[in-house]
């Protein structure tokens, strides 16, 4: 027989919104760190942005810490760098905070660059964490990793662009360019991810992802690109348009990650490739 038989998949209950927050805040924080280090510094305000990035990443880690069954054993997370992406994420976060704090205190931009590079490693580890979870079909596809990295960049760049008028005194052109690039990259990686899931996930997971896919396309891509167009065509409205576009891009990414971690995380249930043949011994 070609079909399989089995009980239907069900939604995972092991990781709730606290775990999702780690991916939501950690990704956005990484994006802010990268944008601030490479596209804002040494303009004024980059240290505030870097501090915001560290705060976001800390919020994510603090949130997932609250979900641990044995929270005070948290240091044990460092024991398996050989195979566990969670351990590697923890190590990367330590490097992020070390270089980030040093950059903020000393105002040395190259320390911020190192912080941003470590943050990229951090978010890559996060993306591989989901991929290593073999029990969840919507997570274990390789195409999820590029999307998580790309949306982290889009979210962080969006938040930076939104806050730049207040913190930097203007919106650095390179940051805007990076924002546009990241938004387009996010769309491309999302389409690739969604395409790679065809027939591999439970119908409920597919429906949840299809719904949030619309948000990624419309709110996460078209609105920010329109905002960029307005900013180019009407410089007087640039700050307002980019702030709006940046915040919408941020919200779309957060929504997408929440859905991936919480709403689309159906397991594959159980299935028999064949049914038992009765009446024989």
């Amino acid at each position, binding site marked *: 027989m070609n079909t399989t*038989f*089995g*009980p239907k998949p069900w939604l*995972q209950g*092991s*990781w709730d919104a606290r775990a999702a927050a780690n991916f939501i805040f950690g990704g956005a924080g990484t994006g802010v760190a990268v944008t601030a280090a490479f596209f804002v510094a040494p303009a004024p305000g980059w240290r505030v942005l870097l501090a915001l990035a560290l705060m976001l990443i800390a919020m994510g880690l603090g949130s*997932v810490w609250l*979900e*641990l*069954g*044995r*929270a005070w*054993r*948290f240091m*044990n*997370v*460092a*024991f*398996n760098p050989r*195979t*566990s*992406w*969670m*351990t590697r994420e*923890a190590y990367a976060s330590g490097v992020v905070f070390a270089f980030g704090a040093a950059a903020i205190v000393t105002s040395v931009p190259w320390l911020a660059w190192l912080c941003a590079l470590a943050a990229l490693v951090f978010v890559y580890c996060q993306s591989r*964490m989901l991929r*290593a*979870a*073999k*029990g*969840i079909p919507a*997570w274990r596809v390789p195409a999820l990793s590029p999307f998580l990295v790309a949306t982290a960049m889009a979210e962080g760049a969006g938040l930076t662009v939104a806050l730049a008028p207040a913190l930097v005194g203007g919106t650095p052109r390179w940051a805007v360019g990076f924002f546009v690039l990241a938004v387009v990259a996010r769309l491309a990686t999302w389409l690739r991810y969604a395409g790679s899931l065809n027939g591999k996930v439970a119908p409920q997971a597919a429906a949840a992802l299809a719904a949030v896919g619309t948000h990624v396309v419309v709110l996460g891509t078209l609105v920010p690109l329109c905002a960029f167009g307005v900013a180019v065509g009407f410089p007087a409205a640039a700050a307002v348009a980019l702030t709006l576009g940046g915040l919408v891009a941020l919200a779309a990414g957060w929504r997408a990650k929440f859905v991936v971690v919480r709403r689309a*995380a159906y*397991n*594959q249930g*159980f*299935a*028999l*490739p*064949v*049914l*038992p*043949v*009765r009446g*024989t*011994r």
Partner: protein
Amino acid sequence: MTRWAMVIDLRRCVGCQTCTAACRHANATPPGVQWRRVLDMEVGEYPNVKRAFVPVGCMHCDDPPCMEVCPSTATKKRADGIVTIDYDLCIGCAYCALACPYQARYRTDRAQFAYGEPTPSEEARLDPGRLGVATKCTFCAERLDAGVAAGKTPGVDPDATPACVNSCISQALQFGDIDDPQSNVSKLLAGHQHFRMHEELGTGPGVYYLWDRA
């Protein structure tokens, strides 16, 4: 070498759940935690309906994804193939539960009892070390090890055999050393067609399902 494995004859299982009850009794698992479960699968539509009872639990994989993701190294695999959890190392992140394609792992954060207040038996057998950490089927490793140390043969002598296998009323569950060609499980596999659950994932489950004669 020894590789402990379980062979489940799907043609024999009647879905009585005695293995589930025996496991819960042997391992004192709280309500809702079933290290050995029996799925009731119904396939097709009336009048062409088929039904299968499928015992599931930790598959003690050759390449366990739970062990790979575990950040604390609490999950380990013994040389004889049994996948273990060190409750003193586990941080209760539940990452292993998501990595397991067989939904074999549980985390219980608070003590739970069948009737609200603990019965004397539940009170006596409550293990606070198992709260807030991952738990799962152990193939009754302590019982097995004690039996082997006493010179007994797992899968043959009840004192060296997992509780679920001992309790099975139809002998659908069998246990033994798959590396020994003379063992009961090796003979069963040689004489029957079999498969492993979600084999396409490459985890190498240590639980085999028989479905027809060879």
